[in-house]
C-alpha cells in the first residue's frame, strides 16, 4: 500500500531529517518565508558549514527547496511534504479513536454488570 505516494526510502529521509532539533528549528524559520543560508547561519551558534549540512539533509527529504539568487542561496520550506506527514498522523489518530470507543464499551459493560 502506498500512503500518499511516500515510499519507504523517502519516508526514512523525512523522519531522519525531522529527528534533529536544529533542523526542526530551521523548518520553523523557513516555513513561511524564504531565507538565505547565511542569514540562517547568523541565528545559530554553530558554523555556517554545519547549517549548510542541515539544509542539505532537509533538501534531500524534500522538506525545503533551495534556489540561487545572485550570490545567495535561498531556502524555502516545502509545505506539501509537511502536509503529507500530517495526513499520516491524522490517520493514526483514528486508530486511537477506535480504541477509545472500545474502552468506553468495556466500561459500559461494567455498569450493566453492577446494575443487574
Amino acid at each position, binding site marked *: *500500500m502506498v*500512503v500518499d505516494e*511516500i515510499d519507504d526510502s523517502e*519516508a526514512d529521509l523525512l523522519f531522519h531529517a525531522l529527528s534533529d532539533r536544529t533542523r526542526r528549528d530551521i*523548518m520553523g524559520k523557513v516555513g513561511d518565508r524564504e531565507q538565505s543560508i547565511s542569514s540562517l547561519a547568523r541565528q545559530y551558534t554553530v558554523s555556517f558549514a554545519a547549517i549548510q549540512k542541515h539544509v542539505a539533509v532537509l533538501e534531500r527529504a524534500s522538506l525545503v527547496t533551495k534556489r540561487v539568487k545572485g550570490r545567495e542561496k535561498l531556502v524555502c520550506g516545502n509545505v506539501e511534504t509537511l502536509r503529507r506527514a500530517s495526513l*499520516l498522523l*491524522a490517520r493514526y489518530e483514528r486508530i*486511537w*479513536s*477506535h480504541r477509545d470507543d472500545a474502552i468506553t464499551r468495556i466500561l459500559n459493560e461494567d455498569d450493566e454488570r453492577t446494575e443487574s
Partner: protein
Amino acid sequence: MTVISSNPDRETLTMTIVCEFDAGLERIWKLWEDPRQLEKWWGPPTWPATFERHDFEVGGESSYYMTGPEGERAGGWWRMTAIEEPSRLEFEDGFSDENGQPSAEMPTMRMTATFDEADGKTRMTVITRFAALDHLEQVLEMGMEEGMKSALSQIDALL
C-alpha cells in the same frame, strides 16, 4: 466519543491523544494490566488482538497478534520501560515476524500513557513517538482497512 483532544505534531512526529473516561484510575489501569481486557480494545474492530504473553513489569515483554478479517495475522510486541501504578506507564511497541519474534528490520514506537483522576473521571494521555514512517504505514494499513469496512457498512445501512 470521549477523545477530548488529539494533537499530531508533524515536526516532532509525535501524536498526543487525550481521552476522558467515566471511571476511576484503578479501573482504567486494569485495562492495560489485564491481558484479557487489553485484547478487547487494543486491536482495531476487525483486527482483534490476542495477547499470548503480557509481563506487566519493568523490563517485561508482551507478545500479541491481531487477526484480520481473512484470518491473516499481524504480530506485535511490547517492552515495558516504566510502570508507576496507577498513574504512568511507558513501553516500546514493535512488530513481530511470522515466528512471533521481534522483527529487527522494523522500527519501534515509544509510547507513554499517563492517567489523572478528577471528580471520578480519569483522563488518559497517550503520547506516541514515531521513529520511522514505514512502521506507521503498517499500523495504518490495518486501521484503514477497518475504515473502509465501516464506511461500507454505513452505506449498507442507508440502502
